[in-house]
């Protein structure tokens, strides 16, 4: 479900917080089944929070190092999410 969810967010601005406390903002370029993320137009959020990555423009982030992804609430249809979750969950329970 979250693979599909992120696909709907491609092109949107997100903030990816990694497990090492680095926070990267940028445009979600692509995502895969492992929730690896490709970010373009990467910007500095908080300079003293992480090593200078000002040279960075685009990056590939391994899904397993992500802690959070902050999203604009307007980019999300919560009802759709809840319905999809219920459907996916019935499939799990039946299996």
């Amino acid at each position, binding site marked *: *479900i*979250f693979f599909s*969810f*992120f696909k709907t967010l491609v092109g949107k601005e997100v903030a990816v917080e990694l*497990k090492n406390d680095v926070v990267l903002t940028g445009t979600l370029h692509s995502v895969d089944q492992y*929730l690896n993320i490709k970010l373009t137009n990467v910007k500095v959020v908080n300079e003293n929070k992480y090593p200078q990555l000002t040279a960075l423009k685009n990056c590939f982030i391994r*899904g*397993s190092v*992500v*802690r*959070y*992804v*902050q*999203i*604009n*609430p307007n*980019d*999300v249809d*919560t009802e759709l*999410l*809840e319905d*999809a*979750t*219920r459907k*996916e*969950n019935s499939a*799990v*329970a039946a299996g």
Partner: protein
Amino acid sequence: MEEPLDLIKLSLSERIYVKCRNSRELRGKLHAYDNHLNMVLSEVEETITATEEDEETGEEIVSKRVRNVGMLFVRGDIVVLVSPPLRVG
């Protein structure tokens, strides 16, 4: 047979409390989850608790930093516990 995940299903579109690794706690409205416990929460309040020790006296626990985020995807591998909010009721 009800699985633990079915109990989380009951909390969809409700506010929940999530205990995470690294002394973090989240409170927010649950909109989606999967069996990895990846989640999407809205109206989120994150509390990070830092413990500082005083050299002379012993332990001084300082509860720190609250953050508010409008919409948050949480990766399941940091989740420790999921529950209805720990407030009254």
